[in-house]
């Protein structure tokens, strides 16, 4: 149970490789914080600095009010689940989970009961005497989680813990992790490159790119009000359509259509952002509309994606799967004006 604060934290691996650049982020007690971004964006490094596995080049990290920059990992009282699980191959499941407690000098009886309890929660009761190599991928993953929860740490660190699981197990474990977070009431910091994991699990999401923190907000806000084109494009699948537009007053003109913006922007050139799901099939007379020339169709049962061109710009639209469309058709779609975004083409920042 603890809050975590990054204050202007920078990590340089060498003079010209900066992994984390001036990161300031405060994570509240019992919060489920997700750090998300592409590989190499510095999210894992940020986590490893908190765990004490990487030195901090400048700035400071606090757990509660205590600066932990120079504290060895064992004194930080955090538990970490690694992407590779990092189970000790020469120890049984029981000993893997007991290791941290043993190192801390927990009485033997306590160790046994806590390992048993964790084994019960994670359905590992029958596997306690096995070695990691005798377990399936999902079981190994649960042992890695068990090793963390028996310690009852102040903060849980999870470094892409689901990325080695197959799709079905991943969904299942995602839900279990959320339940675990609710039951334990401990601060979770979860690193992933998967936006679905970020959106579904996080109380708040911190989007990182190139070592820089882009935006920190609850999932809905990240999705509805991205602060820049990077966040807008990273969250949401398929990604947001970006169309260059010239703007005069409130009229925005793209290569294939024109529309009236709900607000003035003060820009002459901008980038219009529309998510594929924000097109509407029925167009009334005064709505903005586009004519999409369909090049590729994807029917997924619940959804139908149209890939095509509007004027000279590529565009993706999600429509009702019942809508009968063929490749080569021109489809008229309305634009949900409430969900439009305009970005400054120069700075890539969102105007709205």
């Amino acid at each position, binding site marked *: 149970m603890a809050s975590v604060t990054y204050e202007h934290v920078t990590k340089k691996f060498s003079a010209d490789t900066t992994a984390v650049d001036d990161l300031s982020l405060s994570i509240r007690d019992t919060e489920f914080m997700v750090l998300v971004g592409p590989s190499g964006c510095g999210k894992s490094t940020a986590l490893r600095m908190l*765990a*004490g*596995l990487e030195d901090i080049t400048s700035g400071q990290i606090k757990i509660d009010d205590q600066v932990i920059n120079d504290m*060895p*990992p*064992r004194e*930080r009282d*955090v*538990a*970490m689940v*690694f992407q*590779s*699980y*990092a*189970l*000790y*191959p*020469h120890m049984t499941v029981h000993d893997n989970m007991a*290791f*941290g407690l043993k*190192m*801390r000098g927990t009485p033997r009886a306590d160790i046994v009961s806590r390992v048993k309890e964790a084994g019960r929660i994670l359905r590992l009761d029958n596997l306690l005497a096995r*070695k*990691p*190599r*005798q*377990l*399936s*991928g999902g079981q*190994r993953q649960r042992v890695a989680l068990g*090793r963390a929860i028996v*310690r009852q740490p102040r903060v849980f*660190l999870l470094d892409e813990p689901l990325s*080695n699981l197959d799709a079905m197990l991943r969904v299942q474990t995602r839900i279990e992790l959320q339940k675990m977070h609710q039951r334990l009431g401990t601060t979770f910091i979860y690193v992933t490159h998967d936006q679905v994991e970020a959106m579904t699990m996080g109380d708040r999401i911190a989007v990182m790119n190139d070592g820089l923190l882009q935006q920190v907000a609850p999932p809905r806000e990240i999705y509805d009000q991205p602060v820049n084109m990077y966040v807008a494009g990273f969250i949401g699948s398929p990604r947001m359509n970006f169309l260059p537009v010239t703007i005069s007053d409130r009229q925005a003109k793209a290569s294939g259509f024109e529309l009236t913006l709900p607000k003035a922007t003060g820009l002459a050139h901008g980038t219009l952002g529309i998510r594929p799901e924000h097109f509407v099939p029925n167009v009334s007379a005064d709505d903005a509309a586009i004519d999409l020339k369909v090049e590729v169709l994807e029917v997924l049962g619940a959804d139908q994606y149209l890939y095509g061109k509007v004027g000279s710009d590529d565009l993706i639209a999600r429509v009702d799967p019942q809508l009968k469309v063929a490749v080569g058709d021109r489809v008229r779609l309305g634009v949900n004006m409430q969900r439009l975004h305009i970005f400054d083409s120069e700075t890539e920042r969102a105007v709205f």
Partner: protein
Amino acid sequence: MASLARLKIGKPGTGRVIGDKFVGRAIRIYLPLLALLVVTLFPFYWMAVTSFKSASELFDFSVSPLWVREPTLAWYQHLFTQTNFPHWAFNTAVVATISTLISLFCSILAGYSLARLRYRGADSIGWGIFVTYLVPPTLLFLPLTFVIRELHLFNNLWALILTYPTFLIPFCTWMLMGFFKGIPRELEEAALVDGATRIQAMVRIAIPLALPGILAAALFAFTLSWNEFLYALIFMNDSLVKTIPVGVTQELIHGDEFFWGELMAAALLGSVPVAVLYSFFVDYFVAGMTAGAVKG
């Protein structure tokens, strides 16, 4: 799929296929292996056979030298009662064991630190150690002789116990460095976060996982010091402190006179401990200790 179909349909066909396979394997694998085995084992065989021959049979050139008609243990008896062989064997065992232990201790620490800890100059130290190993003992024995004389260690087993690590430590360090590098770093990181100190992470995680490598290094170190000749020849002049390689070649050969029976008996006995060690630890070399540590 094709082979599966063939298996189901025609039994004679499958028989031919298996037969072809067997002949193919025999030519490609077993024949070369057999040749290698013969080449390797032949000297041992000849050595063993010779050591069991009586003197009269040994010098009878009318019969095949590769067979013994009336085996006798006379040379062995002679070796143990008339020569200092028991002393040599004891000395060799003591020197090889202690120098191996010393070298292992140093090499485990050195190999681990070079593989794991990031400190200034780690790479150059690693290369330095490798280069040290390349310096031949024929060059090193001169300065070492000086050192041993200054320490008044001539004719003292410590002279060998202390000089053997000069080539054992570089060798073992280099070898163990590779083994430690092969252990996923996250395992120790997990241990550190779990509450272990760096030393505890090394002792409880890295060393148990490097055990096959450590045993291999120990075995090589032991064999190298067991067979070492040059330093033992130079530092040990008193018959009672000699090691087997030196004692055998110096005291069982007088000028051009070879005591073949004792020579062969001593050589055979000298190679037994190493052979036993190898066969005893062979299971440990079957790796796979780290299987299951990471991923699926």
